[in-house]
């Protein structure tokens, strides 16, 4: 009988076996071709179904964050432009979109879904070009999900009366929507699809650094023959957003972005009687118990914090590991982040792309410096970064405690903070010890513990033995300072409806 090899001690030794990567087989660059992508050099505003130059005649540069090259000039909408957009939306709401038979509204929204699918290559390319996210994600996540949101909500348009028995639902009216730069097209879809299905008209403001896919979506709306004014798109910086927030003739504002901006919007809308939904920041706990499926947990952790360069409000940025498996898990995780392919967002084999802007890169660098200064141990991938553009290595901080800034503040980048716990109750306490409450993750093989833990997470989405999953049918949104209101699912419709028997006013 063969002798069993003696099991070596699992402590870290110099002589311990090492894996070697990348000497035998190296992939060639596999860039996504941009041929036939109908990008324009200059984009105007989309108001009342027409492309209009901004009244202030100003355009600003939109930069490819992977190369720092200007890819297009985008219109800076001023107060007058926003006003024109709201007026167009008001007319369209009262004259066309509101009175339209729900069945017909549904058909327009279905059309949009189909057109996104048909033009998915163009949208994916532009999303990666403009925002820096890997083409693999734009192609496999952002664009299909965007189409999915329109398709899902289209079907609700003529079934709203079934969704809220006893309450007669009606559109809120004219809605202002302000979306962030991390999922430009997908966030436009999350906002537009339910709003349109519920009979509202919209003035949408994309983020300044990532306007292109929203503007191509406007082309799709034209192609779908959506009546003029139903969706208006005004591009620009924070001033454009401010003008929209303060516009007196809006019935509702929906915002996704930072908690600080969300708070200022809530302040300025206070007492106005306008509806408001906020989807804000997060600092999600990602909890791994010692009985978890470790290799898959590592994948979940990677997906949780390095998906979209960590520019994800629900990112699993605080890893809470049961003490007994801390070393083993950290070993696996650090080995795994070496395998993350960082580089050209348009390369089909890239796993992590460019940081969205130089401002965001500076924010990430400042917080990482703070982490080092506070004595946490920084582990980074040794990957080679391109010379031009905004880049940050996949990074993991170990030895973090809850009082450290990197455990409290949203970094919104590829930076994970690792902490430990000993008991389920301690994991709950640490997970909830934050002002945020958007998401949480739990890995354990024990069913009863999953449910016990999930019940105690003060967070709007709890991923159990998985992370960063999204679906149009699945409500998404936060507890506490991560905002209020839901997007997706039946619950998400509430944000775009009023009810005949609802006497309360938001404020």
């Amino acid at each position, binding site marked *: 009988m063969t002798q069993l090899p003696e099991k070596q001690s699992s402590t870290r030794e110099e002589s311990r076996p090492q894996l070697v990567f990348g000497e035998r087989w190296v992939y060639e660059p596999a860039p996504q071709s941009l041929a036939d992508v109908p990008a324009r050099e200059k984009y105007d505003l989309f108001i009342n179904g027409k492309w209009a130059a901004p009244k202030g005649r100003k355009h600003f540069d939109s930069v490819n964050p992977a190369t720092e090259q200007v890819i297009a000039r985008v219109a800076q909408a001023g107060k007058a432009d926003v006003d024109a957009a709201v007026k167009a939306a008001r007319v369209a709401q009262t004259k066309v979109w509101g009175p339209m038979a729900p069945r017909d509204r549904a058909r327009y929204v279905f059309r949009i879904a189909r057109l996104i699918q048909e033009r998915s290559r163009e949208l994916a390319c532009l999303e990666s070009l403009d925002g820096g996210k890997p083409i693999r994600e734009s192609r496999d996540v952002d664009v299909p999900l965007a189409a999915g949101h329109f398709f899902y909500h289209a079907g609700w348009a003529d079934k709203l009366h079934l969704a809220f028995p006893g309450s007669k639902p009606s559109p809120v009216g004219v809605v202002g929507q302000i979306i962030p730069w991390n999922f430009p097209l997908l966030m436009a879809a999350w906002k537009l699809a339910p709003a349109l299905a519920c009979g509202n008209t919209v003035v949408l403001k994309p983020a300044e650094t990532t306007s292109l896919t929203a503007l191509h979506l406007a082309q799709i709306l034209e192609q779908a023959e959506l009546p003029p004014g139903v969706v208006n798109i005004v591009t620009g910086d924070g001033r454009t957003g401010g003008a929209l927030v303060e516009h007196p003739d809006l019935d509702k504002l929906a915002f996704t972005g930072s908690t600080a901006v969300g708070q200022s919007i809530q302040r300025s809308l206070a007492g106005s009687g306008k509806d408001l939904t*906020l989807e804000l920041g997060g600092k999600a706990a990602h909890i791994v118990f010692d009985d978890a499926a470790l290799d898959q947990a590592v994948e979940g952790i990677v997906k949780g914090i390095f998906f979209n360069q960590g520019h994800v409000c629900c990112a699993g940025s605080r890893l809470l590991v049961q003490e007994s498996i801390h070393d083993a898990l950290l070993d696996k995780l650090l080995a795994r982040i070496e395998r993350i392919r960082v580089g050209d967002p348009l390369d089909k084999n890239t796993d992590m792309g460019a940081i969205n802007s130089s401002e965001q890169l500076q924010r990430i660098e400042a917080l990482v410096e703070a982490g080092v200064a506070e004595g946490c141990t920084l582990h980074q991938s040794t990957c080679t970064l391109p010379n031009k553009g905004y880049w940050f290595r996949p990074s993991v901080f170990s030895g973090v405690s809850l009082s450290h800034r990197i455990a409290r503040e949203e970094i919104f980048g590829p930076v994970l903070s690792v902490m430990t716990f000993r008991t389920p109750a301690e994991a709950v306490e640490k997970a909830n010890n934050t002002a945020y409450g958007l998401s949480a993750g739990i890995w354990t093989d024990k069913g009863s513990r999953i449910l016990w833990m999930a019940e105690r997470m003060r967070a709007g989405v709890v991923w159990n033995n998985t992370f960063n999953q999204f679906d149009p*049918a699945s*409500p998404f949104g936060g507890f*506490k300072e991560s905002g209020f209101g839901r997007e997706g699912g*039946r619950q998400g419709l509430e944000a775009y409806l009023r009810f005949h028997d609802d006497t*309360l006013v938001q404020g």
Partner: protein
Amino acid sequence: MRVPVKKTYKLFVGGKFPRSESGRTFEPADAPGTNVARASRKDLRDAIVAARAAQSGWAGRTGYNRGQILYRLAEMIETHAASLVDEIRACSRKSQAAAEREVEASIDLVTWYAGLPDKLQQLLGAQNEVSGPFFNFSTVEPSGVLCAAAPDAPSLLGALAVSVPLIAGGNTVVLLVSEASPLVGLALGELLAVSDVPGGTLNLLAGQRDELLPEMAKHRDVNGLLFAGTPDPELGAASADSVKRVRWADLPERDWSKLDKLCTLHWARPFVEVKTLWHPKAP
């Protein structure tokens, strides 16, 4: 003639009946000659601490149990209906019949909400069909600690309308009773104390809206507000610092007695949070 024993009107915080820590009292507009404890900012803080302490316990009870406790409250109101009618009449110009109608409506409202807690998941939650190998479902949970302010009138039914829907959803509440007619609202504390509602679940303060509402809006450990009245920009703005859920019940006085307006899911819905759980499905 017998000399009656007069009641001292005190606050109801954490299941106890304290005076204001400030020692202040006020004479309500509708009950001159009566000294009512006038809650200070510190009393409010204490009440919020009590509500926070009670929060996980109350939220952690089963819906069935919360329903039974609310039903017990309805029983207590029914038992004390006559004295409540007297209290309402003493501080309002309501006729005997009108006061009786208010008490009856109060009982009806509490009973309606007593039947709600164990149905909230089915009414507001869902199993969601996602396109992937996942079991996905949404549940509702209380927002947490809330502050509420009752309308001036009707003082009993109004106080219950702005608080019972919230505690039915599992929240714990600090309620400022009618400023003009606080006596009936405070009397509610005596019923809460004997109705199995755990201490700290519903705390009652009397005092001035102008003094206490801004503190309620500002306090960082308050998750939401439900105030009777017209939306106030300053209070709304103050509540933004901790991203509170804020609703105003801006009803004409006659609507405060219409149960079809008060007994709807819309009073509970803004103060529960939808939580969505994902779990993979595999052999």
